[in-house]
């Protein structure tokens, strides 16, 4: 991305809004010409994420209700002007629960993705770089985990660990370690054979130097894309775990839990209790998927030829 013109546009916008908008518009249309639809998909993804992150950081901007207040409105009240998303069986305001609940799901998903990448990436690097029996053993373990349905593992872990924010993060993180491991290991194996690595070796660079200065920076580009898609996946897994009742204690507002509560009132046609949490989960996951897909196209010049 062209950083200069970016900050330039921002600086000028501060002086004269009209000229700034013009610069911004030109910058966007230039990117549009270069990357096409993928560019807009990424922008849309970023906007979605930004909005929800904003709601998570300062929910009071959007709602005056406490998500745990059991006197917010009537019991099972349908959406109206005061309660945009209606109220649940405990008379709590669902809109406010959505705003505060975004903290939980974002926190868990991002933390889980961070944990699994921080374990998976170094292991993948080392495994690909060192090779030998170390690589073979580790690959076998990771492949076994990878081929097994991740959610089932997460369920087992979450059930054993019991409810709690840290516990659910661990349960979600465990299942994505093999994703990073396999990706990074594969990349390392390819890059290890590149000419510039051979050149570095020829001039007597240390092994640690080769690993960190030559291989790692080249691996990390692909990891960025996977990281974003991984968060989307982790969001769905977190929500799934709380949906089946393995997630969090009831005192923490959580979208998946709200959904499972709404399930009980589905036969009586209470549509708002299940519609809104689901829509929120979907939109948030969509945001990260769009960001990831846009990044994948933009960071990969080969795909542009298509």
């Amino acid at each position, binding site marked *: 991305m062209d950083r200069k013109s970016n900050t330039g546009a921002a600086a000028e916008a501060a002086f004269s809004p009209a000229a700034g908008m013009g610069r911004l518009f030109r910058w966007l249309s230039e990117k549009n010409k270069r990357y096409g639809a993928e560019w807009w998909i990424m922008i849309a993804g970023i906007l979605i994420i930004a909005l929800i992150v904003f709601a998570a950081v300062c929910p009071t901007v959007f709602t005056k209700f406490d998500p745990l207040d059991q006197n917010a409105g009537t019991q099972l009240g349908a959406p109206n002007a005061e309660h945009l998303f209606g109220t649940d069986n405990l008379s709590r305001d669902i809109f406010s629960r959505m705003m505060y609940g975004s903290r939980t799901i974002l926190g868990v998903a991002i933390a889980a993705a961070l944990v699994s990448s921080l374990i998976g990436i170094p292991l993948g690097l080392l495994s690909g770089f060192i090779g030998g029996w170390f690589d073979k053993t580790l690959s076998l373990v990771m492949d076994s985990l990878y081929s097994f*349905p991740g959610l*089932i593992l997460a369920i*087992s872990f979450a059930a054993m660990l019991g409810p709690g924010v840290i516990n659910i993060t661990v349960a979600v993180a465990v299942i994505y370690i093999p994703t990073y491991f396999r990706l990074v290991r594969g990349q390392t194996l390819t890059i290890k054979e590149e000419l510039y690595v051979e050149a570095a070796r020829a001039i007597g660079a240390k092994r640690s130097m080769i690993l960190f200065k030559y291989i790692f920076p080249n691996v990390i580009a692909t990891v960025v894309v996977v990281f974003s898609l991984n968060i989307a996946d982790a969001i769905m897994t977190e929500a799934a775990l709380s*949906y089946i009742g393995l997630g969090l204690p009831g005192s923490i507002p959580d979208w998946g839990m709200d959904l499972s509560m709404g399930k009980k009132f589905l036969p009586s046609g209470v549509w708002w209790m299940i519609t809104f949490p689901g829509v929120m989960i*979907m939109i948030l996951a969509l945001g990260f998927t769009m960001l990831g897909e846009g990044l994948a196209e933009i960071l990969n010049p080969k795909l542009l030829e298509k």
Partner: protein
Amino acid sequence: MKNLLKYIVSRVLLTIPMLFILLSLVFVVLRVMPGDPVSAMLGDHAPAHVIREKQLELGLDKPIFVQYLNYLGQIARFDLGESMVYKQRVVDTMKDKLPATVELTVIAMIFTLLIGIPLGAFAASKRRSARDFGIRLYGNIVYCIPVYWMGLMLQLLFGIFLNWLPIAGRTSARTFVTDFARSNFYIIDTIVAGNWAALGDVLIHIFLPSLTLGITLSGVFLRLTRANMLDTLKSDYVLAARARGIPEKHVVYRHALKNAFIPILTMLGLQFATLLAGAILTESTFSWPGIGRLLLERIYLRDYPVIQGVIVVYALLVSLISMLVDIIYAFIDPRVKY
């Protein structure tokens, strides 16, 4: 053919380390974490000697390592053991649950393919048009819809508001399962028994859960089909077919689609694990009596042998499917040799 046999044997042998690793992990996690079947069964306030007796009975008094070796020995003899909570063999517990899950996933896979492949092929043939964009958008959105939420929304629409379809269970109360159940694959059983009323009942019950599962996965196949079709549509033989004046529809759906099918088949094997995971959530939403619900139920009871047994069955299913896919591969693609 001889090579194929060799390949199958090596594949079967390869699932052994996978099973071993998974089982070891689950075994350790199950036993290290708090909670055990005895306290789940007797509660926290049972007298110490009762707890002691129960532990002795279940073999939980032995060191974990001994328990582990015993269990591995059991598995090696193809014995999944006995439930610790209910006096029932694990195999018997799963006898009617596993067919329910398999039936659900197979029908779901059919839905996935029926939705994903035609849409993907159509999108590719109308590349960069509004319709293409719309279909791609559908694929992306559907991919991000949590399967359980999709299930709830379909239940709400078809089950509650329109009242067309049942929202829970495999059959309705007025259908007597014992009349036809042999293999517990109800669709097959009812056809074999010629019980058409029951077949209708079974089909109407499986429709919504499998459609739910099918739709959520259709996005993946749509995107894959589209990407492959774009490549195939550029190839020389498609150009040649067009040059001979073969109608475009024919070129796209007969000539190109057939060749784009091979990567789709690979994906089918890979996605089966996703499908099984989705099946757990769908089973939970639709009160579908499959092994996913069994797993959830028994996790709360800390019923170790059943939990381990279900994990073994899942692992076997995944490897079995990927093996089947590889074998089908060899039959439809003459270039593949084992």
